[in-house]
């Protein structure tokens, strides 16, 4: 197990290094000069001297490689820099917004896993019959529905017509759970829909695989009721690989959260990201992109490790 952990951990570290490099390339090499946009945003005429002065202050006049290693050094000390727009540390801003995004993702994942697995397993159990057809059709429709369109339909029906749920706003979970869930319900459903379809497909394929395994045949032969074969043996063995499916979809889920949050005005990382893009706040962008992608890498690492624990065969190979 130690060897397995080391191997996976090492690979994750390399990926994180690549991620930091890519983040730097996108935010510093591709982006227009932040000094220009900071000064330009103040609505005064800007002299080249002012730009040069600010570039010197921000360390933007040094070679890019020096800037990169300087930035990396700060990162390793947990220093993500300060926002350009508001007098706040990037890490503080991210820390404040993180719980909203995590809650949204957990809620959406819970809905998606439960409904997706039910849908997929139903398809597998009634393979080739009408239920399977309905299940596959629902899956492909669900995963072809763009999240922003789902959000707009839900807002139209539940917020504007029926007026039973709010279309925007947020209350902290710690303040009032009921109110919080009321605000979170539509966003969570929006985000979950595509993943219901995705998870249903994986669950169906996995369940079909499991049902043809010898141990399922043996369970049937030993006189267990079909119900307990399915629940105790087949479903259990379908659930374990589903853990990796969740990991594989983590990146997409964060992307979905960005759109969902901005539609429902939830104060999470997604809205912070879109605000920072529009506000040309590049330290915030760097920090956000890095935290999000490293979050995805760490999640995948945890999934790999959990999978290794749940299924001992993996460690050996």
């Amino acid at each position: 197990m130690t060897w397995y952990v080391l191997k996976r951990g090492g690979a994750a570290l390399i990926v994180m290094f690549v991620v930091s490099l890519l983040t730097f390339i996108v935010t510093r090499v591709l982006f227009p000069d932040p000094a220009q946009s900071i000064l330009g945003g103040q609505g005064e005429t800007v002299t080249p001297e002012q730009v040069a002065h600010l570039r010197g202050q921000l360390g933007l006049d040094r070679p890019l490689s020096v800037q990169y290693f300087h930035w990396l050094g700060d990162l390793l000390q947990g220093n993500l820099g300060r926002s350009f727009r508001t007098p706040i540390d990037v890490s503080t801003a991210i820390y404040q917004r993180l719980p909203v995004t995590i809650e949204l993702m957990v809620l959406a994942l819970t809905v998606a896993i439960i409904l997706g697995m039910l849908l997929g397993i139903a398809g597998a159990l009634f393979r080739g019959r009408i239920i399977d057809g309905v299940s596959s059709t629902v899956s492909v429709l669900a995963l072809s529905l763009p999240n922003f369109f789902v959000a707009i339909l839900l807002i139209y029906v539940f917020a504007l017509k029926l007026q039973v749920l709010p279309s925007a706003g947020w209350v902290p979970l710690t303040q009032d759970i009921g109110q919080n869930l009321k605000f979170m319900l539509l966003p969570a459903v929006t985000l979950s829909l595509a993943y219901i379809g995705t998870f249903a497909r994986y669950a169906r394929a996995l369940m079909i695989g499991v049902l043809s395994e010898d141990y399922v045949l043996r369970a049937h032969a030993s006189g267990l009721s079909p119900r307990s074969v399915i629940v105790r043996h087949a479903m259990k063995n379908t659930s374990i690989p589903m853990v990796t499916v969740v990991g594989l979809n983590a990146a997409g889920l964060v992307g979905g959260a960005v759109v969902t949050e901005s539609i429902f005005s939830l104060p999470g990382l997604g809205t912070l990201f879109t605000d920072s893009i529009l506000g040309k706040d590049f330290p915030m962008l760097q920090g956000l992109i890095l935290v999000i992608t490293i979050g995805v890498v760490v999640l995948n690492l945890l999934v790999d490790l959990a999978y290794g624990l749940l299924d001992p065969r993996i460690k050996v190979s």
Partner: protein
Amino acid sequence: MATLAQTRLTRSRTPVRPRVWSTVWAYPRLTVGIALLALLLVVTLGAPLFVSHGPLEQNLSAVLHLPFGNYLLGTDQLGRDVFSRTLYGGRLALAVAVVSTVIALIIGVALGLLSGYKAGMVDSVVMRVLDGVIVFPDLILALSITYAVGPSFWTVAAAIATVNVPKFARVVRGQVLSLREREFIASARVAGVSTIRILLRHLLPNVVEVIVVQAALTAGTAIFTAASLSFLGLGLPAPQPDWGGMLKDGYAYLGSRPLMSIIPGLMIFAAMLAFNLLGDGLRDRFDPKVIARTARVRAGRREKGATDEQ
């Protein structure tokens, strides 16, 4: 194998039906996907035939016009025909999807072939970099690149291509890793065939199927990512109509003019569905297991002795 032989016998006894129809029947997802895509192509490319107002034509005396009457689906906040913009908007969406998919395909397939065939150092370096790209959420990477370089058709297409390169590279590499151990590749190598030639003439033809399936699925997600960018206000620049941007504009008038956002939303949905069904359908079509099974189903149906084939 016996069932396949049996199928052939059965087929020769039944009246000959055109092959096309049996394929249509055997692969419903492929059929629906192709039909939907064809429909979208006809209405978007043939847009001038269906509309009576240009997509950019403003009529400020008919702002937010209700549907029907002079405007089939009403007008937007600038008095532009929603129906016309919807049809023309599809051109841009499909163009972005096709262009970005082709770019991602060429780069991704090249990297996948090279990485899978060369193995060793080349493979490690290429795959680690692509691992780094793939952990970026599509939308976040595409959004950052588009914004950094400045939104235009080509930046949006290039940004979406970038996020999709690793997907092509991974599926191709996976196939090549097993193909390179096969005898025909080994013998080509021994016979002194150049690496380029082995990659393009020996390996590439054997991975075409996975590439085609991946391309269809990628085009679907490209439509989605492009629309998401526009929806967030960072996609294709105005005033050219595009579905994501129309949805965003319409959202402000959701209470009074719901069609302004629902119609483009439905179009994005239809396009994504068309590509997803096409991808699934092609995968079924290329999958030997499914081919054998549908052959059995067909044989079974004709003999009226069909039991549950699974």
